[in-house]
């Protein structure tokens, strides 16, 4: 275990600088090997900046221009310019445009068409792209995307719910497909999706809440499933789900905050998966969203269903689709 000195504050400025510097790392091979994640990186970075009250640290024009350049004729978005369209990136694109309030820059109808085409009419499941991979992550992507665009009518919602419920497990959790093991990230996707379409009553909140709160380990961090290591990204997926289910108080807030803060890189900025490791923008976002849910000061509140700043969700007029419980 790492012996990093405990951090007691959020290094806001450092993180802002870190995110701004991401696109400059062009002499790192890693930068080029992760090109297919560029659009995701923009979403992660931009959302993080907004939560840090610094959304303008990335120039809006540039961001929007980039997102637009990733849209394809069929309406879907790819991970980078010239790459193939996929449902994952389509969601990221919509999320970014919603933050920047720039949906008018793209062909929304085409997006809806693309997302709708991803649904298998028989099973209700969603494929990631034309190559047919099925995963409940894609159910979330589709429903979240359409919800943000106010176009849930474009798909068969009850069938979508049916498929998600096929992925429910003996422990109250959800897997990526029928029969698959419960995993915090998949659970977030399924519960988030169910919340979007007003079907939370189908979740056994007590049982799942128990499974989720048992993810907190002695060091305060959360793991994604039993016997696995703690990881900052689970402080989003586990926490957001608990929040949606109104059971956020079932974990120890102070210890988790301590854990996330200690995973910060006090020199270069950014947050890592656990104390002592290298930071990356993915864990930076989820560390911040976790802290935000825990009402850490200096951060804007985040919406646990959409993983967007709450003010953005409110701006587009979406109702809060989860149990609301203040921290005592």
């Amino acid at each position, binding site marked *: 275990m790492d012996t990093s000195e405990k951090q007691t504050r959020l290094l806001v400025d450092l993180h802002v600088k870190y995110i701004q510097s991401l696109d400059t790392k062009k*002499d*790192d*091979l890693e930068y*080029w*090997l992760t*090109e*297919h994640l560029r659009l995701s990186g923009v979403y992660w970075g931009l959302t993080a900046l907004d939560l840090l009250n610094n959304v303008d640290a990335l120039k809006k024009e540039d961001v929007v221009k980039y997102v637009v350049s990733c849209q394809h004729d069929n309406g879907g978005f*790819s*991970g980078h310019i*010239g*790459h*193939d369209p*996929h449902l994952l990136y389509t969601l990221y694109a919509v999320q970014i445009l919603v933050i920047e309030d720039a949906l008018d820059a793209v062909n929304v109808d085409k997006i809806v068409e693309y997302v709708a085409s991803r649904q298998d009419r028989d099973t209700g499941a969603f494929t990631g*792209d034309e*190559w047919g*991979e099925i995963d409940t992550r894609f159910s979330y992507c589709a429903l979240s995307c359409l919800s943000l665009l106010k176009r849930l009518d474009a798909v068969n919602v009850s069938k979508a719910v049916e498929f998600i*419920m*096929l992925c*429910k*497990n*003996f*422990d109250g959790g959800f*897997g*990526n*497909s029928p*029969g*698959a*093991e419960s*995993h915090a990230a998949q659970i977030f996707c399924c519960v988030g999706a169910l919340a979007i379409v007003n079907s939370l009553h*189908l979740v*056994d909140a007590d*049982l799942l*809440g*128990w*499974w989720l*709160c*048992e993810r*907190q380990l002695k060091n305060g961090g959360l793991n994604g*499933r*039993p*016997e*696995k*290591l703690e*990881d900052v990204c689970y402080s989003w997926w586990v926490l957001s789900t608990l929040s949606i289910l109104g*059971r956020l*108080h*079932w*974990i*120890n807030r102070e*210890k988790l905050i301590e854990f996330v803060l200690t995973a910060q*890189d006090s*020199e270069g900025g950014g947050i890592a*998966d*656990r104390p*002592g*490791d*290298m*930071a*990356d923008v*993915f864990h930076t976002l989820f560390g911040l969203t976790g802290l935000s849910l825990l009402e850490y000061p200096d951060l804007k509140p985040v919406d646990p269903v959409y993983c967007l700043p709450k003010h953005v969700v409110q701006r587009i007029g979406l109702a809060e689709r989860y149990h609301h419980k203040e921290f005592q």
Partner: protein
Amino acid sequence: MHARKRAKPSAEAEKHRKEKEATKIKEYKNLVESCFQKKDKKEFDNDAFILTTNILSQNPDFYTIWNFRRLILLSGTLKECSEEEKQQTLSSELIFLQELFQLNPKSYWIFNHRRWCLETMPNPDWNKELQLIGKVLELDARNFHAWDYRRYVTPKLSYATETSLTQTEFDFTTTKINQSFSNYSAWHQRSKLLPILIKEKNLDELEKKKLIDKEFELVKAAFYTDPDDQSAWLYHRWLIGQGSNISTSQMDEEIKDSSIKSSERIELLQREINVVRELLELEPDSKFCLQTLITLLSELKTNTKEGSKKIDDEIITFCDRLIKIDKFRTKRYEDLRSKITLSQQQNH
């Protein structure tokens, strides 16, 4: 992105690294550029294929290149060729995938491509796939990609051989659990197979009860051996919830509501309460024992009107103990506690 230690290299070392990487970056970018050129021009030839091989060997997460590779195969080598040639080409793909897999055992894209190959092949060897994935699970029994893949392969094999594999797969989970009963993935798989097994075997009530009782024995041995292991307790809770109603339905809510509050059910609850109580005596600070007793007693209470105050009081003492033992989840136990006291107040 995960689990990379933070390093503070010297300026000298940094410079050296950057120089080394500069050549690699140049080479990689050239590969990608050439590949995209071919892609944009729709040139599905062997050169393009080799480019995809080179790129994917370095970067198996580059999903667009997998897509392109499949297009090349479909428009090129797999188009207008004999069944044998098709089989040969796709078998080579499988070998290529295996090499990549060694370094990337948890890549979605590698598994996706493998499935595509097997579905496109004239004669997929599902048995071989089962053997292969068995070996993977030997090395890492918690690799959920591997378990998912196994769940994908077994129905295919079952269909091809016209035999049910439920029993053998069930036995496979037994083997895995015997190797390490902290193997949550194995217990999970078992929870999926047990209802199917019962249905397939068409067991009568007595045989069904015997089978389920064996499951209780297994899980009991696990939590007596290690009361801190969550897997066994969660499986136990599921078994209780199912009782004699283990079915293939996914809607647990329905089952709970329609479960007959018969004397049989009470007997089951009592029996398990006794088992857990005995363990609690040996391990008074076992939080899972206490939680399980709370769950069992809560249900017992709804079956027996008399003595419900006594049960409530005991549950409350358990909650108090849990609050002391498990400091991280204090508020959850407080919630449990207040639920009981609230319902007590309501009943007066």
